[in-house]
């Protein structure tokens, strides 16, 4: 019954991506892959020549940025605000301190946890103007999940009106889905039917090595110890789902549910 659903799977951004569309050709989905690869090359921190790396090395100088990077940086600032600082892109020094200096496929480096510091407030170190951005000397950004959620949202909007874009687990579904009852998405052990919604799971079970994992708590600069291992969220967009899921996980079991309820937009 899914014969009219085109699907396209590929690896990019160090993860697996899947694109689905009704009324969308395989060629259009392949163009979506190309878009992901081009943008991914700009926002990766693992390439010294990427746009993000140039900003991280700009030593406090104003730098010209592409419209996409400008939007992503503004999204990072919005994530900081929405999470009261818990989703802070300025955790790159901590990422490096825990040994996450290159893609995990290449392996982690030796951790130097004594170098980990609480992340500075993002709005105090990152300024974004039209076509330009400035990052304080000594600071570094890791756009990580924000970039994946943002790309899923943009890609879904670009590809058509009945599309599901999954970028490394951050996904966005537009339209009524193949059977007009939503896009069926595995989520928290069940199937959720998404219609014009995004979803994401934040987890410390993956991207983990020894006692360390990739989810940094900006309050300490160290991997989260919130006692929550995994949080899955459905939200209005993939990026919102990513932000809320990560914030809830960092808040821990005492506040996670209440935070999710507080960020829920009223129906209608």
């Amino acid at each position, binding site marked *: 019954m899914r014969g009219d659903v085109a699907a396209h799977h590929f690896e990019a951004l160090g993860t*697996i991506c899947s694109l689905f569309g009704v009324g969308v050709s395989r060629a259009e989905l392949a163009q979506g892959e190309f878009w992901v690869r081009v943008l991914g090359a700009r926002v990766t921190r693992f390439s010294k020549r990427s746009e993000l790396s140039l900003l991280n090395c700009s030593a406090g100088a104003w730098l010209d940025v592409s419209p996409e990077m400008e939007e992503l940086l503004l999204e990072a600032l919005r994530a900081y605000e929405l999470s009261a600082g818990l989703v802070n892109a300025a955790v790159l020094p901590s990422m490096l301190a825990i040994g996450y200096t290159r893609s995990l496929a290449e392996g982690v480096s030796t951790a130097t946890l004594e170098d980990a510091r609480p992340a500075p407030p993002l709005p105090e170190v990152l300024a974004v103007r039209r076509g330009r951005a400035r990052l304080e000397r000594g600071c570094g950004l890791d756009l990580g999940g924000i970039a994946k959620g943002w790309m899923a949202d943009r890609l879904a909007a670009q590809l058509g009106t009945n599309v599901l874009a999954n970028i490394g687990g951050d996904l966005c579904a537009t339209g009524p889905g193949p059977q007009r009852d939503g896009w069926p998405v*595995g989520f928290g052990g069940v199937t*959720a039917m998404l219609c014009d919604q995004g979803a994401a*799971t934040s987890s410390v079970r993956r991207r983990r090595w020894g006692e360390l994992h990739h989810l940094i708590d900006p309050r300490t600069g160290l991997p989260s110890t919130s006692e929550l291992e995994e949080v899955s969220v459905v939200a209005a967009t993939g990026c919102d789902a990513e932000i809320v899921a990560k914030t809830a996980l960092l808040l821990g079991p005492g*506040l996670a549910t*209440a*935070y999710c*309820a*507080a960020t829920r937009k009223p129906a209608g």
Partner: protein
Amino acid sequence: MRSFLLKVGATALTLGATVVSAVYVTAHLKNPSAPLQPTVVASQQQGAVGGLTFTPGVRQGDVQPVTSTYASKV
């Protein structure tokens, strides 16, 4: 006499402002290591969290999912 009163008044005003400022600052200490806490509806202290809460805006289905928020993580 008038000059003396002015001096006394100015001194009292200065000392008073100093004391009030000290009291205010002491009562409004900014703790840079205080944890950030975003807005929540209410604090829910729970020993363990498991399962999912499906709000009215999210529908559950019984069909095979085409993808998931898990499987795509490398």
